[in-house]
């Protein structure tokens, strides 16, 4: 895809010098487009706006949705491009980083020059293009991860972290907007020729937000997947108990929840097995301690007015006290995997810290067996799709599997990852205002607290 001009030069003695490769100069067309968008910054996208295109869902509302996408996405995409262009030159030269940059430029150009959508028919075509674009970006994170790993010596870890945080958050937003439109288009397609779409699928979906996500079902789904993965890797896997408010449902984006759960469960399972094997030997078949999962839901109490009026922060005092307080769905994953070594605690949320002996970690020096370290098993097993760069054939679907309509796959992938799982899980969990916290009791086990902010109707959440 990338077209490099390679030059072979001869020095004065006639010997061939190294082939140099420089990227082609940026095309005029692109520069003009980017210039046009120079002053256009991404605008806050209220969730309610996106959801409104689906209620009610009609041929005309889908056109509005498409137009909204065409307005908003280029702004966000060009911002992605700019932030990558701001990386040090040598980093931008890395083929993996360069590949991603080019891919974003292309997508930006495509969308910025796309013809406007005027009816439901032209929307079908537009949405097909959108789906292709989404698919082409499926492996952005693993590719970037690989690139940054190779560039570790050129950039400080904090700078990489900060870049990745921004990149991933922005990516979540872009995909959310795109996928929402794709989902609405599909829903409309299922009911062709109707003026309005009657009550939607049993999942109570208005696009990618399911107003009645069942944590219990999602936990079951993810547990089954991780269980298979664990047995495939270690030959054994712990059982799981689920308690708390098991009947509760809440409005959220199911794939986000599933991604976070899968990452955390992988860590919990791996720790449990490894800790057990460390204590009783690799061939022990003894009972593994269970992983306990607890579900809870609550709406916070309102903020007392007197607290607002004195020593208040920047936020206007009326804003908080008149708004309805937020609701949260909490999930606690508790394992007896021995906990995290205190010396690793600082680093477990930083990108590319892992003690897994993965395919790409041969240069890492943090392989001191011994105490369980919170390895972030993200990367491939959680994200990979076709065309993954890991050659061991890992094809464990997940987040993006669903988006391309395949549903959650339960293929086997490696459980060892790139070290991106924990920081990404935290990004996803905190995306709409939630959180992810980890507490370790070294010598016993780890508790992970995940909180999702419920996407209720009347809140002013932004994408």
């Amino acid at each position: 895809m990338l077209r490099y001009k390679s030059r072979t030069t001869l020095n004065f003695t006639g010997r061939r010098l190294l082939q140099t490769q420089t990227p082609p100069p940026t095309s005029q067309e692109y520069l003009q487009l980017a210039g046009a968008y120079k002053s256009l910054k991404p605008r806050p996208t209220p969730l309610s706006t996106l959801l409104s295109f689906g209620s009610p869902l009609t041929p005309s509302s889908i056109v509005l949705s498409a137009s909204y996408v065409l307005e908003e996405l280029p702004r966000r995409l060009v911002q992605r491009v700019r932030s990558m262009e701001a990386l040090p030159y040598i980093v931008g030269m890395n083929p993996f980083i360069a590949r991603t940059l080019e891919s974003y430029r292309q997508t930006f150009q495509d969308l910025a020059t796309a013809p406007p959508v005027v009816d439901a028919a032209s929307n079908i075509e537009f949405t097909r293009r959108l789906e292709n674009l989404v698919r082409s970006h499926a492996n952005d994170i693993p590719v970037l991860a690989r690139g940054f790993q190779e560039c570790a010596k050129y950039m400080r870890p904090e700078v990489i972290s900060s870049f990745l945080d921004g990149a991933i958050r922005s990516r979540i937003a872009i995909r959310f907007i795109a996928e929402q439109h794709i989902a609405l288009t599909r829903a409309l397609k299922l009911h062709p020729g109707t003026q309005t779409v009657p009550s939607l699928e049993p999942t109570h979906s208005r696009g990618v937000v399911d107003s009645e996500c069942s944590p219990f079902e999602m936990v079951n789904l993810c547990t089954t997947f991780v269980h298979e993965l664990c047995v495939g890797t270690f030959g054994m896997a712990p059982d799981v108990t689920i308690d708390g408010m098991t009947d509760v449902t809440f409005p959220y984006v199911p794939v986000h929840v599933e991604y976070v759960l899968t990452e955390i469960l992988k860590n919990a399972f791996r720790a449990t097995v490894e800790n057990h094997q460390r204590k009783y030997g690799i061939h022990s078949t003894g009972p593994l301690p269970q992983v306990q999962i607890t579900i809870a839901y609550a709406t916070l109490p309102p903020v007392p007015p007197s607290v607002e009026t004195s020593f208040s922060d920047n936020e206007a005092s009326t804003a908080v006290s008149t708004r309805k307080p937020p609701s949260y769905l909490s999930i606690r994953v508790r394992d007896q995997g021995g906990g995290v070594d205190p010396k690793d605690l600082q680093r477990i949320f930083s990108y590319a810290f892992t003690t897994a002996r993965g395919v790409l970690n041969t240069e890492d020096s943090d392989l001191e067996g011994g105490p369980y370290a919170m390895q972030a098993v993200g990367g491939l097993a959680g994200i990979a799709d076709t065309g993954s760069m890991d050659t061991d054939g890992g094809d464990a679907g997940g987040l993006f599997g669903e988006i391309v309509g395949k549903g959650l796959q339960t293929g086997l992938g490696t459980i060892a990852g790139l070290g991106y799982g924990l920081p990404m899980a935290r990004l996803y969990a905190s995306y709409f205002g939630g959180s992810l916290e980890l507490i370790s009791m070294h010598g016993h086990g780890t508790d992970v607290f995940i909180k999702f902010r419920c996407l209720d109707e009347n809140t002013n959440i932004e994408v």
Partner: protein
Amino acid sequence: MFIRRHVSTTPTNRILSPFLRGYSSGPPHFYSNKQLELYANRKTHRLSLRQLVFFGRSMTEDRLIKSANYVRTELPVRIAHRIRDMQLLPYAVVTEEHVAQIYSLYWSAFEKLRNYPQINDRAGNDRFCEFLHEILQEHSAAIPILSLGLSISSPHLTPDELDSFMRRMLVSRISRRVLAEHHLALSEGFAQREKFQTSVENVGIIFTGLNVKRSLDKFIKLISSDAPGGIADRLRQDSVLRSLPKLPEIVVDGEVDATFSYIREHLEYIILELLLNAVRATGYQMCFLPDKVPGVIRATISSDKDDVYLRISDQGGGLMLNERQTPSDLYSFSHHRNITRLDDARLVALQHVSRRKGGMMGKVSEKISARNSNTRAQEEQEEVAEQEEEPQRMGMGLPLSNIYATYFGGTLELMSMDGWGTDVYLKLPRLGTNLEGIEV
């Protein structure tokens, strides 16, 4: 030329200015702050647990006297730091009735200590111990009085200023008590050993084989016992808890053998506070949701080479803080962070306790019973305020627990599953190499 003045032996500041009062009738005037500054400019000599144990291990009369003089010279330095700190608070705060009372109290202690003569023999140490007892007693009501005073004068301080000031005061206070009580315990231990030749499980106030489960079991037993005047009794004074046929069950698991060296009083204060919170919260849930299976409170212990860990997990419904708060606000003394500080019930409780003879010393015994306490003054005390309908909840338990936990470098963390329950995580260092967490 030498000018003879016909004066009494009162300090020279009386002569210098007609406006000055002698030190015996109150804190000295602005111009006589010199002595204080002398001490306040000295650095605090911080100790580690290990040093405290090491010094107390092979006790001789000589070392006992050395310890006495060390305490004698270190205490006024620590108090001087506090006084200077108070002097920098807003005028309106320190002139408030209760804060002023504490300011006076501190000056009196400072003067007494700085003028105390050197200790040279056993008899001198005995007298010094008596003196220490007295001072500790005098200051027993300082916590609630100061807390009350600060709550009242909180409009003059930002939440952070109030918090950090109170925290510094409490930390310093604990540090002075650690020094004093350790020396007192060493003196007593020395006397005992001479008499009985017993091998002891403690060096001063530090218990060398402190088993976490044993402490937990002790309190679990007390909580579930029917003995009058005990913790269970106090818990049942709460009208909600009274209606329960049975208080929530507490279970201990994990590394039940874990032992380490620590100040038992500190560990047990924290444990009891956390257990009581869990029992109250769970009990309330049991009342309001009678159809729900009552949750078990689970205490889990673990350890590694550096630390000992304890987790107390309950199903009491969670902390349910509003979106402006974080769990660490519960450690705050400022009413902005924790609006319950200004609750009438709290203020009344503070006032009540501040007037009580034994005051409040942040000791486990106080939690167990309002009447029973191992302080000498309370043994003599006959009259006690009638037990009120609701127990006196001053709201100091969590802030104090946090200070005890962090004193030698440990941590205390609260995690809430809103709607379900709370998990509290305590971590205490076991090597004893961390220095006291007081300002130098």
